[in-house]
């Protein structure tokens, strides 16, 4: 167990370092860009106002609010402190709602959609890929081109296709939203059902895209493992095929989990865009409306939250990998 403890501490250390880096980047990047974000915001707000002093007053107020008149490092400390207090400031496009309020209402929609979708897609994709490698023949011949094709369709493309086929043409599913437009969130069965119905298309578009990518990878891994020496050796000692398949898939899965960890950032990014297609009330639509509204505080906070989300997912996967790869848990060798 000692080896695992080392592994765990190592990964935890990395997590913290990356977290700090994320904060720094999120803070610094916008401020390094040419142009004064406050001025841009004020310009937008002050459109139509001809009173120069009025505009100046607004500018000063916002400068105070954002603290852009203080030195950089002081701003950073204020920033970090605020984040930990949960204070992200006020949303410009949805004033007087606070940014924290806006994000907290859309964050859970995204998490509830994406994480199950990615996991389900990963499981299904890997299973199909493994089956294709093992069964070969016609199953493989059908699965491979489909997977190749699917893995090249961007997430939003699949979202549009599903939307058009199932929502617009066949009218089975609704075209937008997280729940019925005429409903107010309440813990009634009707509401829950509406949520489930609205959940289907976004969910399945993410799942299908994930399946495409994973199936191909797993198929290659499984083919590689099936031809491995230990497979032949085990067979020659009389071990049943079923058991050997177990060996192969356990071994092929490990790099797949690592692969998932490495690509989780891209997957989530793609899924966010897919959310927009469905006007799903998650972080994707939040970003879109924030961009349209020039809402700097909201965007800055949303990117931070998304980064943290990806970070957490990544490190959760690494910890999980450490638990299931027996070599990591092995006792220290002499």
């Amino acid at each position, binding site marked *: 167990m000692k080896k695992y403890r080392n592994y765990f501490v190592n990964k935890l250390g*990395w997590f913290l*370092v*990356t977290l700090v*880096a*994320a904060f720094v*980047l*999120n803070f610094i*990047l*916008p*401020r*390094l*860009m*040419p*142009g004064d*974000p406050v001025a*841009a915001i004020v310009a937008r707000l002050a459109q139509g106002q001809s009173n120069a002093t009025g505009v100046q007053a607004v500018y000063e107020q916002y400068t105070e609010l954002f603290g852009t008149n203080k030195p950089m490092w002081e701003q950073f400390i204020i920033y970090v402190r605020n984040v930990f207090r949960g204070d992200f400031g006020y949303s410009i496009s949805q004033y007087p709602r606070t940014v924290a309020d806006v994000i907290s209402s859309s964050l859970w929609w995204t998490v509830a959609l994406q994480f199950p979708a990615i996991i389900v897609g990963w499981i299904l994709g890997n299973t199909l890929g493994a089956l294709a490698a093992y069964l070969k023949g016609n199953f493989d011949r059908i699965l491979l081109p489909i997977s*190749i*094709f699917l*893995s*090249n*369709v*961007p997430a*939003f*493309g699949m979202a*549009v*296709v599903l*939307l*058009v086929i199932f*929502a*617009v*043409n066949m009218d089975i599913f609704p*075209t*937008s939203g997280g729940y019925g437009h005429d409903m107010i969130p309440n813990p009634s069965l009707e509401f829950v059902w509406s949520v489930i119905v609205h959940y289907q298309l976004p969910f399945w578009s993410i799942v299908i895209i994930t399946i495409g990518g994973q199936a191909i990878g797993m198929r290659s891994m499984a083919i590689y493992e099936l031809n491995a020496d230990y497979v032949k050796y085990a067979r020659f000692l009389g071990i049943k095929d079923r058991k050997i398949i177990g060996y192969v898939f356990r071994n092929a899965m490990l790099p797949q989990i690592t692969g998932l960890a*490495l690509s989780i*950032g*891209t997957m*989530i*990014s*793609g899924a966010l*865009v897919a959310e*927009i*297609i469905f006007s799903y009330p998650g972080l994707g639509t939040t*970003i*879109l409306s924030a*961009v*349209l509204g020039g809402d*700097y505080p909201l*965007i*800055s906070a949303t*990117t931070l939250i*998304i*980064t943290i989300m*990806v*970070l957490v997912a*990544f490190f959760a996967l690494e910890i999980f990998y450490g638990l299931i790869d027996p070599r990591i848990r092995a006792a220290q060798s002499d």
Partner: protein
Amino acid sequence: MKHLLRQIFRSGKFVVGFVIFMAIVLTTLIYPIFVTDPPLEIISRGTFLPPGVYVNVYDSIGGVEHYNLVLDDAASRRIANQLSDDDRLAMQEWLIGNEVPESEIDITDTAALLELWTNNFDPTVRLPGMTNADRNYYIRLNSRLDGLLDTEGVVIAEMNEESGQLTEDYVIEQNIYVNVGELPNIRWLPLGTDNFGRDVLNELVTATRVSLNIGLVAGVVATIIGLALGMISGYIGGVVDDLIVFITNLFTVIPGFVLLILISFSIGQEQRGAFTIAVVIGLTSWVWTARAVRAQVISLRNRDHVNLSKLSGHSTIHILATDIFPYIASYVVMALILQISSGILAEAGLSILGLGPRTTDVPTLGLMMNWSMIYQAHISGYWWAYFPVILVIALISFSMNLMNTGLDQVFNPALRD
């Protein structure tokens, strides 16, 4: 080198991918030679015109030769265009609901059906189970049917400017045809128009070219950065390596797309040209290449020819350029292809969020998607505004991926199946 090229072109996957890709590239280059209209020129009033051949009605009435063609089915086609089978069934339903005996209704006999209809239809009647929408449908249907069976022609009249009186000029009979080839004004819109009234096909070709350019720039930038960092960290090792690996690992976890959003937004609308966006995309997506190159360089740095070079006293840069680079060139090419492909996708994603290149200059594939999404094309069924775009994106991505897999199998014989 020639042998290598020959091997590459013998790979089935590479050739297919290459052909598709070149077809797309050539189209974007050749099309503008023949069609010189500016892509963002608004050519229609009204949004989302469906694909088809658009014929100028004014010209067909006036300035061209009128021909007489007597075709038997002309009348029934005209009727069928207005009165579909579903419409007939709807009419039957209405009539039955209005207590017309079913035996008297023959939906195949247009004349009789229409007579029954004209005699019985009452727009104010509301049958049980009929919604408002249904009632409006019947009213619209009724007005469509007006004059359906007429055999008289249409009168073209001239208005007297002073008196305001109309005098008959001539009559357009039902069997008058014009030769489309003689019309001065027809416009073929294979993909209709978008929400602003712009020719979608024209836009698409230009957008593809722009997106490919963006992808190319982004890919080159990312590959150069990745190559440089990978080579330096892989070859020099030590503290430099640790530092670069640290940074690389950092950027592996922090999603490049998020940084892209942040940077793109902060740059502001005015600064966001296509080129700038491309560079930014390149700056945020070099991680994978750097990692792959570093791995390769590490396995190469202890090879004999490298050691020989070191003993000969060659400078590090010289060694990197002449001893290491040629061996990783194949990886670099593959990495470049992948980076270009992902660059195009990244731009599309950015544009959908509204953070892509400026909208007034040139269209990009992502921007076209953005417009069609914002204007709800997908919900209203205007497939031409988004589906070709998705198809092009998927094809580009697919063909590049194929080329890459083909190249991979050539450079790495172990992967050949």
